[in-house]
């Protein structure tokens, strides 16, 4: 079974997205990046993020991640904040620690692209 299937696939993404987005919007350090006018569109992007982090099917390349985040001028602290919320979301949902480690490894692998390093 793939990581994505072990976590619970699309249902897990749907369960996680509200929890994760609530944490992000409540965090003053990063909330302004996500406060676009259209919350529905933003929710869909959050799902894309979670699907990717959960090892699910996606077509994003490292180059896409670089291009997609470049204009935000993100710093290390922003990356750590998002990673932290990802981790605590998975803990809230009772995901097994070894699976959480795998998700965090996927997130970490995008670090240099997301921060345009």
């Amino acid at each position, binding site marked *: 079974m793939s990581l994505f299937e072990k976590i619970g696939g*699309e249902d897990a*993404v*749907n369960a996680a*997205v*509200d929890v994760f*987005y*609530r944490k992000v*919007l*409540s965090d003053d350090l990063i909330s302004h990046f996500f*406060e676009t*006018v259209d*919350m*529905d*569109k933003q*929710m*869909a*992007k959050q*799902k*894309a993020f979670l*699907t990717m982090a959960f090892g*699910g*099917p*996606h*077509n*994003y390349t490292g180059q896409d991640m670089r291009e997609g985040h470049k204009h935000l001028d993100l710093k290390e602290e922003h990356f750590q904040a998002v990673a932290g919320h990802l981790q605590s979301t998975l803990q809230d949902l009772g995901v097994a620690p070894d699976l959480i480690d795998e998700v965090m490894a996927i997130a970490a692998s995008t670090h240099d692209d997301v921060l345009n390093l």
Partner: protein
Amino acid sequence: MPTLKFSDKSYSLNDSETILDGLLRQGESAPHSCKTGVCQTCLMQVVEGEVPPEAQKGLKETLQSQGYFLACQWSPSEDTSVKLPGLEDTAISASISEIRSLCHNVNLLRVTPEEGFSCVPGQYLTLVNSDGVARSYSVANLSHQDSYIDLHIRTIPGGVFSNWVNEKACVGDQVHLRGPAGDCFYIAKEGKDTPLLLAGTGTGLAPLYGIILDALSQDHTGPISLFHGALKEEDLYFVEALQELDQTTSNFSYFPCVLNGEEGAFYTCGDIQEIVLTALPEDKKELRIYLCGGPDFVNSMKKKTFLAGAASQNIYSDAFVVRSSE
């Protein structure tokens, strides 16, 4: 090989090719990003064809019921016609059948379409007057049962369209309708016993009133609470009708809120945002929230009710944009 119609042009689709891939391959530009059915950037609407359920995964029920789908998730085996979401271009003629003042700055405009115009209460349509000026307004009656459509027009000082309604428009005049659009409406499929909370400012009452009539006509049994916010008492309208509905309908409650009001009146004094947030039920899992009115109110309340625990999928909204040319 199935044929695909898109923006008045025909394209061919290869075996098991998705609509998005087919369009991109043939040089058409179509919005897209993840190509895996998650980011919803490639949202389209079917014109002709049978949308498979997997192409509607993750979309709100109100979008699904209107044939919205994700172009990266549908590989048609039959000829299909699709379009980008947006208002219909074709306009339908209608005539004005009533103009009535609802309060000092809102008029009710009743229009009767000359041919079939199907819209759901809570959706909005674009009204084009005889001078060619167009504005969007929400459907405030059971338009699918009545033969007419009720719209609430707020008078905007110096507003071209609202002044036309106030001063020039007459019963019998011809106008044109385009649309409808919007996904802020009642859908029984999501459960008839769930609590509904509706909050709006000004003529945000129009879609909310339509949604309430629709829910009640479909025998919604869950509690329905309406919060209507106004700056001053005289900005409230439909007060008597709503008070009567409150008294005659066991599951409907009406809460008028006035920012600059007087204590002890029939309404609650204060900021509608705070009043609604303190009135949210303990259990917010099933709660469906409808928010209509100015963009500041709607966007702020979307975020606040979501952070308070409402599920993002259950928040429906329609933010009115006032044209700067008005």
